[in-house]
């Protein structure tokens, strides 16, 4: 153990022995109990399932009113036209769709405390978390900000429709939306989520990839750009071919993919994808990315990975180390890298190096972005 490591170990031991100050229990208990009782009186302590069941009984009693409300929500949702370019860390504040929406109210999400409940009354409400995500509530929608630590923005959609533009990140997820037991986890994408009757949640992905599953559960359904599906408490529901929820109409789909010089190109609508509803918004035809551009991108990324592997892989003497891994590269239309995946993964040091090296790389603009895979053979 080196001198610096021993110094660190020594101070850690001292800090471990340090007792945290005592907080005055009596002074905390009474306000907390008062808050608890108030929450209990408002019925805010029940789990989501109980709330839904209670809500359904109420709906049955007031069906005509709810039917009218549903019509209003659908009308509001159909009017949303979030059309824009791919996610861009520098463009969060000047996202075209947000700017072009008249009367849009906007909030600084980083200034909100966890637990804040946000409602959009008669105009859309946009919440921006700097360099992470911007999400918008359609009129008549309501959401609660569960947490917004540095890495992950966690929102619960309580009513209506939420659309989100999430800044690309190499983290496993940077934005989570949950609604009645269904959770959508994303990192760098554009998607919409609409609450339907009972626990039905519609998710439509415009760019990138999202994982949809039961909140807190392990399994997840992967939805890619251009796909839409309904879920009930995280479980995908049977599809109705050719149907498109009005709640998620009006969005442009990312191109299914681009030809690659080598390897398979992914990212297109797969099994279960739902075609666009031409009656609402004709899908824009998109040209595939030029093969030469894709090849240059692959070469640039591969070179960075190779350099990181060479610099951060320990080797004794002249021993030659060779590793094969599959690179999956997703690039946005503006040339920024959406995701880089290596399967099997490399060491944490190498992956951190790759993350740093590709952080600000731009690979050339294309009409709709692309996703490409390639086998890499790395040498040390």
């Amino acid at each position: 153990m080196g001198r610096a490591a021993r110094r660190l170990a020594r101070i850690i031991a001292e800090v471990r022995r340090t007792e945290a100050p005592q907080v005055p229990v009596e002074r905390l208990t009474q306000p907390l109990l008062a808050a608890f009782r108030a929450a209990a009186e408002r019925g805010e302590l029940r789990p989501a399932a109980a709330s839904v069941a209670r809500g359904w009984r109420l709906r049955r009693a007031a069906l005509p009113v709810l039917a009218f409300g549903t019509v209003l929500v659908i009308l509001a949702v159909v009017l949303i036209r979030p059309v824009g370019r791919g996610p861009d860390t520098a463009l969060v504040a000047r996202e075209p769709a947000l700017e072009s929406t008249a009367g849009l109210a906007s909030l600084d999400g980083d200034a909100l405390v966890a637990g804040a409940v946000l409602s959009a009354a008669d105009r859309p409400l946009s919440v921006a978390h700097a360099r992470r995500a911007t999400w918008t509530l359609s009129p008549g929608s309501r959401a609660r900000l569960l947490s917004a630590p540095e890495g992950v923005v966690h929102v619960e959609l309580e009513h209506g429709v939420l659309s989100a533009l999430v800044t690309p990140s190499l983290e496993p997820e940077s934005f989570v939306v949950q609604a009645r037991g269904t959770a959508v986890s994303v990192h760098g994408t554009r998607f919409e989520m609409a609450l339907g009757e009972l626990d039905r949640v519609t998710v439509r992905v415009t760019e990138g990839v999202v994982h949809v599953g039961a909140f807190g559960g392990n399994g997840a359904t992967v939805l890619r750009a251009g796909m839409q599906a309904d879920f009930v408490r995280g479980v995908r529901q049977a599809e109705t071919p050719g149907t498109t929820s009005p709640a998620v109409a009006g969005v442009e789909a990312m191109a299914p993919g681009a030809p690659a010089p080598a390897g398979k190109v992914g990212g297109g609508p797969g099994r279960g994808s739902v075609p666009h509803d031409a009656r609402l918004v004709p899908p824009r035809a998109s040209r595939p990315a030029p093969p030469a551009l894709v090849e240059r991108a692959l070469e640039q990324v591969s070179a960075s990975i190779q350099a990181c592997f060479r610099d951060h892989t320990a080797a004794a003497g002249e021993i030659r180390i060779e590793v094969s891994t599959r690179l999956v590269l997703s690039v946005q239309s503006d040339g920024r890298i959406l995701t880089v995946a290596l399967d099997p993964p490399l060491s944490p040091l190498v992956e951190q190096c790759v993350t740093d090296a590709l952080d600000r790389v731009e690979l050339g603009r294309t009409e709709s972005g692309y996703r490409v895979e390639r086998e890499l053979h790395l040498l040390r």
Partner: protein
Amino acid sequence: MKLEPDAEDAELVGRCRTGDAHAFELLFQRHRGPVTRLVYRMLGPSSDLEDLVQDVFLQVIRSLESFRDEARFSTWLYRVALNVVLMHRRAVGRRPRLVDEQHALPAVDSAPSAEDALETALRVAAFYRVLARLSDKKRAVFVLHELEGLSPARISEIVGAPVLTVRTRLFYARRELSRMLAEEPVLAALELEATDIASSEAPAALRKEVE
């Protein structure tokens, strides 16, 4: 802090959802110590400690409906506490900082003499100053692993990142801290003894996971 799955927690949470205030009081009593320690270690000596502990449990009340039974309550509580601390740090960063001399030095109870106690307190305070310079992500995994003794797998559940990412952050946190400690006069002069105190005092499970 032991964060093993606890049926008693689940039962108390269930009772809380029925509006049982006594159950919530028991839940608070059970977890206020670990929560206070985590907040303190994340924040360092601060006059805001009491407010933040209260905020954590207020947040628990607000979010209890969203807590799912399949998750461990203690894991969820740790996540809530971390979020509250990070939100607080973000808010504090936007306004002038007030220094409370009363909280400037931590209490160290195991030093053999008053002089040693003071030196140790100075070192610990210096360490927290250095720790505060780490990014939130790295500081969180460092505190949870090195000071709280949690495994990377458990930390990954709390911070919502893969185990690999947790280990990477831990690696860089240690490296940055080692470098920064050398630049801190109080800590740079730290006498290095032949015995490795940290290794001898770390929980067995922790030592195993670190390596």
